[in-house]
């Protein structure tokens, strides 16, 4: 074989190997983190861990039931607030491409996406926590809802923009009024994309700590009252991992593992729903 050709074949192989190595390097930190947290956390997890609340310092055992319930309530309330607003906003942006309100709104969404979560927390502290006179789970939900909004708006908008306009016209030509065309044709066709955006936004904020520090605040006891301070998984990890007590460190590792798996699970469910509900045009 021609020497130059051989040289090129070798060069191409080298580049291929390099790319594979780089790809592996990227996933390596993620794998290490997962393995480490798994190793530290898995020994903690048992039935009592999931159903009991933390014991006072010095007593062994105890669990994170209050943080589990709290996270669930706070995230659920945040979703109830932000999902309808986010979807409606996404519809508005995809339907109105060139008016000033739409352009201005698009910029706001971009800016909102870039606002650090701690800033959202502070703003909610001054707008809601202070006027209401105390920390509450509800104020934490509002902070998280604000963080979810841009993700839901963007994914809804991008999904709906991909739906061919011929479907809308098919609806109009059948004498279907505008609001029904949106609700009955456009939304169902974009369901999988919208759903995956919602799930991703939940995965994204489930581990947020900063906006909850001065809103939901945390609570060593079990509480389901959203007008009172409430514990949540990230807050528990933050508070207990920075404490000087070995028992509490263990709780924090266990909670971190649960948080990690919830987020991984949400991502996997997102992938599956996208496949199952996808509408082929």
């Amino acid at each position: 074989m021609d020497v130059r050709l051989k040289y090129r074949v070798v060069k191409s192989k080298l580049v291929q190997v390099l790319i594979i190595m780089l790809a592996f390097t990227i996933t390596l930190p993620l794998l290490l983190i997962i393995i480490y947290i798994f190793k530290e956390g898995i020994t903690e997890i048992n039935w009592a861990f999931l159903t009991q609340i933390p014991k006072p310092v010095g007593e062994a055992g105890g669990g994170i039931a209050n943080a589990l319930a709290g996270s669930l309530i706070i995230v659920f309330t945040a979703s109830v607030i932000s999902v309808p607003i986010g979807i409606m906003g996404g519809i508005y942006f995809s339907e109105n491409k060139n008016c000033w309100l739409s352009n201005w709104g698009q910029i706001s969404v971009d800016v909102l996406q870039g606002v650090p979560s701690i800033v959202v927390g502070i703003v909610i502290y001054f707008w809601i926590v202070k006027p209401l006179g105390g920390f509450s789970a509800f104020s934490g939900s509002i902070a998280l809802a604000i963080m979810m909004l841009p993700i839901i708006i963007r994914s809804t908008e991008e999904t709906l923009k991909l739906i061919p306009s011929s479907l809308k016209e098919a609806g109009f030509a059948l004498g279907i009024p505008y609001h029904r065309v949106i609700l009955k044709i456009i939304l169902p066709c974009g369901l999988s994309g919208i759903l995956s955006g919602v799930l991703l936004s939940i995965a994204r904020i489930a581990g947020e700590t900063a906006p909850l520090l001065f809103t939901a605040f945390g609570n060593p006891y079990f509480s389901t009252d959203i007008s009172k301070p409430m514990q949540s998984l990230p807050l528990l990890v933050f508070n207990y991992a920075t404490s000087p007590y070995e028992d509490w460190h263990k709780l924090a590792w266990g909670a971190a593992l649960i948080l990690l798996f919830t987020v991984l699970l949400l991502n996997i469910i997102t992938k599956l729903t996208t496949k199952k509900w996808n509408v082929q045009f």
Partner: protein
Amino acid sequence: MERPVLTSKKLNAYFGSVHAVKNVNIEISANNILAIMGPSGCGKTTFLRCINRLHELTPGATSNGKILLHDKNIYDMHPVFARLKIGMVFQRPNPFPNLNIFDNVIAGYKLNGLKLNKVNKERIVEDSLTKAALWKEVKDSLHKKGTFLSGGQQQRLCIARAIAMEPEVLLLDEPTSALDPVSTASIEELLHELKKNLTIIVVTHNMQQAARISDRTAFFYMGALIEYDNTKNIFTSPKDTRTQNYITGRFS
């Protein structure tokens, strides 16, 4: 001539400053097929979209003049009402991908929130699919998504969906341009059947098709209606030189 079903009077349509349809006057009588032909970009689609008021949905699009359905101006009606009376089939088949075949046929009722009982639903679906010459092929797979059908079947599904609403006028915009010859033939045959109950306007790029299926033919050129006559006359003794040039293939 009997009273026309559809009349356009001094109809003009614009996209911003582009004058796409220029002062078109035309009368269409019942149970006729009108073929509209003309070179690309001469305003055929735009004219059709004026008739069921889809044109005005394009940003920047305007129109003036009158379109009478019997003796009522459709521009004085609510657009939704006009579109219920005047159905449309598009160039590319566009069944609703989220609905199965059955629901696609009754989409006009379902998505409009009009309640039908089970018996009526099934009757309308069977009737419409039979009229659209699709019933035999799909009667065992009504629960399948409409998008699984072939292009020709999808287009007939779209025709079934349009006639399920029992419109008085059916508009078809180059309904066979995306289809194979066999599907094209079956749709042409179908139009012949449909005109017993309907008035049909079909845009076509294909002169043979116009000659085969239509009773009357209109020739558009650069937005204007150049000639409008019985199909036979248009093809055997066109009066305008531009029509002559077009049908002898001197431009397309």
